[in-house]
């Protein structure tokens, strides 16, 4: 576990703090490569739990934390298959990403997402598995999936509902809009907001503070306050796959993948 340098992710363990850096160009889109490396990370995290007390997930790219699922790859791969095969492939992908997300969500470590810039779709969902979200004031959050005729598929809805309640989920999901870190802090999603360039310093200081507490107690507190909504997560995969089989999704993905418009990330 001590150190890993991948094509999409890197991680290391120093003084009891695991740091997972996302660095896949252009903006940490989560495709098969990232998924494979996340799976390696989840397996490594399990082995290191006796040596670590905290995990920080951050992006080393300027554009932001993550723009979400790799839609261009999804479109390209699904075009190489018939519809049934494509839905089966998507289901397999979702099952795998859910296993990774659930593993991080249930980790005995206290987990911190240190986010800046674009924190969209699957990237937002990755941040939501963490216990704390610390945001640079230029961070921006969004579930853009309905624009493609889909719902978020990496566990975002059940987790955001768990953390914030239904009203804000409906606003984000049904309008497809993004909101900034100030708003995210107002609604209770972000627990600390920091000035630009100060993000990792604050996340590391927070991880240092966590070291002062007994890890078993912290884990018990986390299990009590942050139950994993397994049943809703299963239902999410079912709904996502039902929607993915609809022709509107192919049209939406094609438009996104082939568009030369300047505004593909704007609703």
């Amino acid at each position, binding site marked *: 576990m001590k150190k890993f340098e991948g094509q999409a992710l890197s991680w290391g363990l120093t003084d009891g703090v695991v740091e997972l850096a996302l660095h896949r160009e252009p*903006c940490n889109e989560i495709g098969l490569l990232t998924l494979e490396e996340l799976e390696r990370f989840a397996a490594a995290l399990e082995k290191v739990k006796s040596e670590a007390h905290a995990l920080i997930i951050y992006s080393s790219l300027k*554009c*932001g934390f993550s*723009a979400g699922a790799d839609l261009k790859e999804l479109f390209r791969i699904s075009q190489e298959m018939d519809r049934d095969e494509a839905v089966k492939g998507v289901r397999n992908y979702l099952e795998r990403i859910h296993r990774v997300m659930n593993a991080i969500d249930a980790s005995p470590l206290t987990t911190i997402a240190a986010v800046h*810039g*674009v924190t969209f779709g699957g990237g937002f969902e990755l941040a939501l598995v963490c216990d704390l979200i610390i945001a640079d*004031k*230029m*961070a*921006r959050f*969004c579930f853009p999936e309905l624009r493609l005729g889909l719902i978020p598929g990496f566990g975002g809805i059940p987790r955001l509902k768990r953390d914030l309640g239904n009203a804000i989920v409906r606003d984000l999901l049904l*309008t*497809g*809009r*993004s*909101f*900034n*870190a*100030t*708003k995210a802090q107002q609604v209770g999603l972000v627990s600390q907001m920091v000035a630009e360039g100060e993000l990792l310093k604050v996340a590391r200081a927070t991880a240092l503070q966590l070291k002062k507490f007994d890890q078993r107690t912290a884990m018990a507190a986390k299990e009590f306050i942050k139950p994993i909504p397994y049943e809703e997560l299963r239902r999410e995969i079912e709904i996502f796959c039902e929607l993915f089989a609809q022709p509107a999704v192919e049209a939406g993905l094609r438009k996104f993948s082939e568009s030369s418009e*300047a*505004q*593909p*990330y*704007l*609703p």
Partner: protein
Amino acid sequence: MLTINQTLEEILTLAAAHFKVAREKLAPDDDFFRTLGINSLQTLELLTRLENHFQIELPDYELQGVSDFRMLAERIQARL
């Protein structure tokens, strides 16, 4: 309360500073995608910068069809 012209001026100044472009190169009726040479992710950066500066919330769907600074100023003015 700022006037629309003051809002417009502040937007131009902020955009120039954020994207490191000389202020005098930006005009109210410029297509900001073209003038600044920015993509949609950078447009969201500008939106966040403007929201933080004006202390407003501007849903990004309100940017549909907005491509020049003057229209952007009108959308922001409606939220002040």
